[in-house]
């Protein structure tokens, strides 16, 4: 089984909401000081999905990360978890892309790798939350796709995928090669072991520039965008909470109930 996983470095989505800042003049997020970026959590679970398949039936896992200023200790986490190889699409021209230019570059990199049975992505990246890149890669490469997976079983050249829906899940069978996007219902991604970290530290990522994947710089990153960002801003939260007190927690509880009744909320 040859498995490719796309994994993105993002600003830690679970950093305290109060630390989140936007610079309105540049329409950009100001990375919170002292908070290290992370691999987008759904992408980590995509790596986990790949590792579970390899654990069961062997194979090779290649991880691709696209971006600029990729911190080696961050993007190497999939290697620390046990992935075999890491390819970085790292070049200024890949920066500031949208779903379209990102999916295009990743698809061209996957094409260059050539041999694969499954491509995994996270269901959406924790920064722009679009959830389009997986479907885009599948469309560009002409692969069948299943999105928002929580369980993947491989038998006889096919994948049986449990796809999360609003009110449960459906079991979908798909022929391989296929693209599958992974959701958190898959379960927690494994933590790297000390042995895994030691092995991962020794591996050097392969770096590909646009020319290496046969594309022009004008087709990727900001130049390849199909959407324009007009404005990035923070929603205003009104922030007026009345704290209900009491001599004891029980009394506070009673006071809260009375308050809600008085305000005709209950």
């Amino acid at each position, binding site marked *: 089984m040859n498995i490719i996983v796309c994994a993105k470095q993002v600003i830690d*989505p679970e950093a305290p*909401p109060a630390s*989140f800042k936007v610079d309105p003049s540049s329409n950009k997020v100001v990375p919170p000081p002292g908070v290290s970026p992370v691999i987008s959590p759904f992408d980590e679970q995509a790596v986990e999905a790949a590792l579970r398949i390899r654990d069961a039936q062997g194979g090779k896992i290649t991880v691709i990360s696209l971006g600029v200023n990729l911190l080696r200790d961050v993007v190497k986490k999939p290697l620390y978890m046990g992935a075999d190889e890491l390819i970085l699409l790292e070049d200024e021209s890949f920066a500031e892309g949208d*779903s379209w230019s990102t999916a295009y570059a990743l698809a061209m990199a996957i094409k260059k790798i050539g041999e694969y049975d499954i491509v995994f992505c996270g269901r959406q990246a924790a*920064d*722009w*939350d*679009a*959830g*389009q890149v*997986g*479907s885009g890669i599948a469309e560009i490469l002409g692969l*069948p796709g*299943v*999105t*928002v997976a929580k369980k993947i079983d491989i038998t006889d050249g096919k994948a049986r995928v*449990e796809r*999360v829906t*609003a*009110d*449960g899940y*459906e*079991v979908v*069978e*798909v*022929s391989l090669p*296929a693209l599958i996007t992974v*959701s*958190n219902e898959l*379960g*927690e991604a494994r933590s790297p072991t000390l042995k895994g970290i030691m092995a991962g530290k020794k591996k050097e990522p392969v770096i590909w520039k646009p020319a290496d994947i046969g594309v022009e710089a004008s087709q990727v990153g900001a130049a390849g965008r*199909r*959407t*324009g*960002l*007009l*404005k*990035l*801003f*923070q*929603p205003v*939260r*009104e922030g*007026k*909470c009345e*704290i*209900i007190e009491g001599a*004891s*927690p*029980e*009394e*506070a*509880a*009673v006071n*809260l*109930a*009375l308050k*809600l009744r008085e305000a005709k*909320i*209950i």
Partner: protein
Amino acid sequence: MAEYKGVMIYCEVNEGKLAAIATELLGCGRKLADALGQELCAVLVGSNITGLGKGAIASGADKVYEVNDPLLKDYQTDSYVTVMEKVVKQAMPQILILGQTSIGRDLAPRLAFRLDTAAAMDCIALAIDPDSKQLLQTRSVYGGNALATFTSACSPQIATVRAKAMSPLKPDASRQGEVIAIKADLDPSAIRTKVLEKVPEEVAGIKLEDAEVVVAGGRGIGNADGFKQLQELARVLKGAVGATRPPCDNEWVPDAAQIGLTGKIVTPDLYIGVALSGASQHLTGCSGSKSIVAINKDPEANIFKVAHFGIVEDWKKVLPAFTEKVKELLGG
């Protein structure tokens, strides 16, 4: 070359009826079509959908395209994208809107790439730029920490819209419109997936997304037993129980109870958040609630930034007394 014109709504069908999201989108689409001075059309795709077009017209559509085929019984990416590609190429809408649902999340991006255009996912506001006539697509990004407004010069402009972000029109059965059947013409061998089984994960009682009162629990509830107390309060208030992600991940409650960015969107009259911190990804799914009550032992918890009423205490000491008092007040 024909021009892209008009607004098209992809209308989901649920248990033989137009889904709530479909009427919400038709309400929004009507406004956009009027702003452009153009037509609003609806698309219905499935098996046994004949007759539902009238409902779409009553809810604002001028024209309905129906694609009815036994092969379209279950949503499958290959069949639905192929059919929608055909519909869009025939109708040439300038704007295509879908719901941010299990179907829309999968269909919209793949269709956008197929049609060589772009999509904006999970929009909460759509408007027409008065000068360029382009669609201004405002969506939540960074887990709800920020909002972003996008445009695209590609046609058609595709957007998915979040549940409950738009208001439906009052249905008017006297509205007139045309219903056009389009043949699916699917090649079964080109459908590369097969739906083997659908497994519902019922949450007992009132549906979370329809409930007027939601009692939500977070990681601080600690275990499945703790959620029984929330259920009791929800029962007294005739509401539903929801959760943040950790209780779902820990299997204290079914996944279908998750509220937030990747869960359900709820806008009840009363939302009571118990032992949850108020992460942006959660708040984005409940901040439209009319009244928000928070019970959390940490006075710095982010939930207090959006709550209207709060108690800073251990929930275990607060909830039983609160439930008792509410029972007494409601006489039940």
